């Protein structure tokens, strides 16, 4: 339950903040203590190595001395890291912890700057409310900036402060984005990040709230979760309908956004493509993108890559037909020879199929094949003017 801060409560909250900052400072000392302890342990171990090495040198124990040298090398490497960590921990800038009165004055100032300060005791949340925010004509409503006092200085706490929309006007593209720089109630502070951290570390609570407000009342179009231009949704490049984030498809061919009705995907590469950029392969009739269309190397017609790779262009299927027809016209009286020696007609009759087993179109290649397979010395050479007069096979 929220409470407007009364005098007594104000003192209690100020005391809680001060205690929390004091605990944070103590934890930093504890961390530095740990770093120094690590360094001291390495030094103690190094001293042990030194004593044993002296003994080995004095007694001529070469092998043992060699092992100790390896151990010393490892220790020096470790010392390098631990000393740097200890130095970093010790050199962290010391922030002066304010006393309770200073924190109380911060809270009083925040109360004046924001026309009221709220406290949620069960969650230890201190909050202020901003005025209604409107950026470049887009109304976003008012926000509450909530500071988790218990999380001050805790790096493991997921969110030290939240920005809650009290009158949400989220973007159509993503309803978790209630402000161009707020997503899921988390503010991306951008240029204010360092100043916010320093203000909180020093207990300057009012400065923290003012800094957050300065980010909320400004618009950085170059780095927004959703730009104000797209706040009410982006329009489909084709039909112009407004699209939510889940119904927006990007065409990799023309680099525009389309709705689900105006887009599909390439049947070859599965890339999202608008209907305008998809082409139908005339061979397989699949819809493919421009990147997956190519040309037949023989006739130059457009077809998809798969049809080209599989040589499925119609021009390639028609070529054998043309050759067979022209040869057949020149050899009307020649019976095409079957590999078994029988003519095609005889073969067809023997089968009793009632159909010509070797249609005329196949006669020429069969005859040629039979000529090649015929006996060598008894072969009679065939000349064009001798066709029809000399049997092909003995």
């Amino acid at each position, binding site marked *: 339950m929220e409470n407007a801060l009364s005098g007594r409560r104000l003192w209690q909250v100020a005391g809680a903040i001060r205690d929390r900052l004091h605990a944070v400072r103590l934890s930093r000392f504890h961390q530095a203590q740990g770093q120094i302890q690590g360094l001291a342990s390495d030094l103690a171990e190094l001293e042990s190595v030194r004593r044993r090495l002296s003994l080995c040198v004095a007694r001529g124990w070469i092998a043992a001395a060699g092992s100790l040298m390896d151990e010393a090398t490892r220790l020096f490497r470790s010392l390098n890291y631990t000393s740097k960590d200890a130095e970093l921990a010790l050199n962290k800038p010391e922030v002066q912890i304010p006393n309770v009165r200073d924190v109380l*004055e911060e809270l*009083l*100032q925040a109360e004046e700057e924001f026309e009221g300060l709220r406290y949620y005791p069960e969650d230890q949340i201190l909050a202020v409310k901003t005025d209604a925010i409107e950026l470049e004509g887009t109304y976003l409503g008012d926000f509450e900036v909530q500071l988790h006092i218990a999380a001050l200085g805790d790096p493991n706490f997921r969110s030290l402060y939240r920005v809650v929309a009290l009158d949400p006007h989220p973007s159509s593209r993503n309803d978790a984005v209630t402000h*161009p*720089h707020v*997503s899921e109630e*988390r*503010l*991306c*502070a*951008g*240029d*204010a990040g*360092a*100043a*916010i*951290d*320093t*203000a909180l570390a*020093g207990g*300057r609570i*009012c*400065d923290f709230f*003012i*800094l957050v407000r*300065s*980010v*909320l*009342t*400004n618009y*950085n179009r170059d*780095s*927004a*979760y959703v730009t104000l231009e797209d706040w009410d949704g982006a329009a489909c490049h084709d039909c112009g309908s407004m699209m939510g984030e889940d119904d927006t498809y990007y065409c990799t061919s023309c680099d525009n956004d389309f709705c689900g009705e105006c887009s599909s995907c390439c049947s070859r590469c599965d890339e999202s493509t608008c209907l305008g950029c998809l082409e139908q392969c005339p061979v397989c009739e699949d819809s493919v993108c421009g990147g997956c269309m190519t040309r037949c190397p023989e006739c130059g017609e457009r077809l998809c890559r798969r049809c080209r790779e599989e040589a499925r262009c119609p021009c390639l299927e028609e070529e054998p037909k043309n050759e067979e027809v022209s040869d057949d016209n020149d050899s009307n009286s020649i019976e095409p020879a079957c590999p078994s020696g029988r003519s095609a007609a005889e073969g067809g009759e023997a089968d009793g199929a009632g159909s010509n087993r070797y249609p005329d179109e196949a006669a020429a290649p069969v005859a040629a094949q039979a000529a090649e397979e015929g006996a060598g010395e008894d072969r009679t050479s065939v000349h064009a003017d001798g066709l029809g007069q000399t049997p092909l096979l003995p």
Partner: protein
Amino acid sequence: MRILFINNDGGGYADYVEVAAGTTVDKFVSQQIAGGKAEDYLIRVNRQPVPREYVLQEGDRVTVTPTKIEGAVAA
């Protein structure tokens, strides 16, 4: 004379600085914020709004906070 200056522009440091006697807050801010305009900042002296021509006193606490700061998308 010495005053406490809290600059919430950039890193947000707080430090004591020496200023000449008779320095107004407007002049002080112009000196501290290079290229900045006073109207782009929320200026408080001892946590209170003061007029531009207010003359700084020994031990004053001056806070300067930008009113427009660019946010960003988390990386």
